[in-house]
């Protein structure tokens, strides 16, 4: 009996996901709700990936949106170049029908590119710590944004578009809410991957670095290797979120990956609490919904949201969840799922 009970939430979630896809397939939920759900998914990936570095490793990375930009641009460029019809030759490099299968691979390639960009932060982090590392991340964010601004083949500051055509092409072949499916799938996959990584013996080295780097090194944790893995993993996942973000909106410009976007990520991580994965997921959901609910306020939205956060910080100085998971607060939940 226990065996089945442990899968309750998994099965329930699966049914919910299927139901959502069916509803979206037959246009029972409107596009606005769909897009909000997709933004929630993107933000979950963004927040949880940032929580590897900022939450579990205890470093202060302020330029996470830069890696999101790398992923967004690389995957958008790939999908547009590969699957849209070239004006001169009149045909695309790969047949558009292949885009259905290759889409997740393109997103992952974007993630890998972002992971390589993560080296920009990972290598300095061997020698640098704390606030000095924070500055390096800010500088990297600025560098990526200004580099994109100066690249004319991706449109410079005007931005880059054409991803919608690829998505429409996919929908033309077989009608299915692809983006919704892939965003949620990638979000679940990311949370699962991070959970596995953090709880593994190897991944516990990251938490050891947070608690005491020198002691961790004495205890035979290869701190440099650990940092390299953590930064590249984190920025790679941010790249995946960027790729999805670009394809959901269908338009990217460097301005949308500025420090402000990084700040949003920081808010989601620290609102959750440092080192709480389920907290990051919950705060990503709450934050995105809050953003959408307050949209009618227009400019006052960005006055009200920081104010709310300042007040939340005053009452919960360790974040909503602290460093505990949801199952620590509700131990009975453990009966219903086994997330490993």
């Amino acid at each position, binding site marked *: 009996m226990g065996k089945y009970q442990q899968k309750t939430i998994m099965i329930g979630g699966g049914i919910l996901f299927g139901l959502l896809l069916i509803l979206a397939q037959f246009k029972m939920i409107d596009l606005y709700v769909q897009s909000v759900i997709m933004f929630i998914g993107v933000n979950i990936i963004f927040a949880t990936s940032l929580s590897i570095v900022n939450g579990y490793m205890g470093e202060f990375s302020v330029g996470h949106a830069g890696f999101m930009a790398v992923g967004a641009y690389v995957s958008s460029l790939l999908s547009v170049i590969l699957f849209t019809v070239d004006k001169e030759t009149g045909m695309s490099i790969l047949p558009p029908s292949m885009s259905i299968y290759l889409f997740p691979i393109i997103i992952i390639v974007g993630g890998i590119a972002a992971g390589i960009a993560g080296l920009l932060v990972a290598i*300095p982090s061997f*020698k640098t710590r704390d606030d*000095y590392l924070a500055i*390096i991340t800010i500088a990297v964010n600025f560098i990526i944004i200004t580099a994109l601004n100066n690249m004319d083949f991706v449109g410079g500051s005007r931005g880059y578009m054409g991803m919608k055509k690829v998505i429409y092409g996919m929908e033309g072949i077989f009608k299915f809410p692809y983006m919704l499916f892939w965003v949620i799938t990638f979000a679940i996959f990311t949370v699962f991957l991070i959970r596995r990584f953090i709880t593994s013996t190897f991944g516990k080295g990251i938490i050891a670095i947070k608690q005491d780097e020198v002691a961790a090194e004495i205890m035979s944790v290869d701190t440099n290797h650990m940092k390299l893995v953590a930064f590249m993993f984190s920025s790679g996942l941010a790249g995946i979120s960027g790729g999805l973000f670009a394809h959901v909106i269908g338009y990217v410009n460097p301005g949308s990956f500025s420090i402000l976007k990084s700040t949003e990520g920081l808010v989601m991580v*620290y609102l959750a609490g440092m080192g709480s994965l389920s907290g990051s997921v919950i705060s990503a959901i709450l934050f995105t919904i809050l953003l959408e609910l307050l949209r009618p306020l227009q400019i006052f939205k960005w*006055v009200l949201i*920081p104010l709310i956060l300042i007040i939340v*910080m005053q009452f919960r100085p360790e974040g909503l969840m602290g460093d505990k998971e949801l199952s620590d607060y509700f131990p009975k939940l453990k009966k219903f799922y086994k997330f490993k």
Partner: protein
Amino acid sequence: MLTTLLQNIINALQWGSFYSMIALGYCLVYGVLRLINFAHGDIFMVAAYIGFVFVGFLLKFMPGSGMYGWIVLAITLPVTMVLTSMLGVFIERVAYRPLREKGAHRLYVVITALMVGLVLENGNLAIFGASSRKFPEIIDKVVFTFGGVRITNLKVMVIVTAIVIFIFLQTVVNRSKIGMAMRAISYDKFGIPLMGIPVNKVVVFTFIVGSSLAAIAGVLFGMSYPVLDPYMGMIIGWKAFIAAVVGGIGDIKGAFLGGFMLGFIEILIVSFFSSNLKDLIAFTILLIILVIKPTGFFGVAKSTKI
């Protein structure tokens, strides 16, 4: 060629002065509390707007030229400094101190600072609208020419002010009793209250000095580059902070020189390459410096205890 270079150096000195003045404000707060006060750039922006509003108010009663211009400036500067200090202390009192006293993680205070910055920026945007404002010209421009190199009296004023502020801070922090308390707090946060040093009073003093610096910089910035918009503080603030770190944050000399260094790099890039590449090259240089010398030029590596 030589005159262009000299002219550029003068421009860089002026541009760097602003970075320096803001970097010094970051450096003061960081030196005492180990807190990256991300709201500082926005306090600078608010100061420029307070100056703008107050000058506009004064110009209704007196003409803004000749002798009167200087009187307007002489009234505006102290008023802006007082109002901005009140804002700085208010933020400290309401947002930072409760968190410190609850023993929150250092980074939560930093996030709060980021949020305060957003509130200031967007609050300003909501009040004044997105269109940029023009700071009125209050003092008459006098141009000195030395062999083809033109220096306006405003430039001289800005550069001299930055240097005077630096010397003032250097004396306060290194020579005075309250400066000693400031250094002591950064050295040992827990032992200091036991020695009878009123930590909170020292922190408030730090915020008053830091915000007054931002006020002076804000008014002078409005006079030198008379276009104000709500986001100007954010960008200049982030850059000034990076400059302060490259110079070596926690050390006044480092922050001061870091600001000038960034000013020089930016102006020279603009004059020899293109202004589009300004941020790219400047940040790459700063990144390389930080990778080679992780604590900045004058920073001292903090020893870590096991």
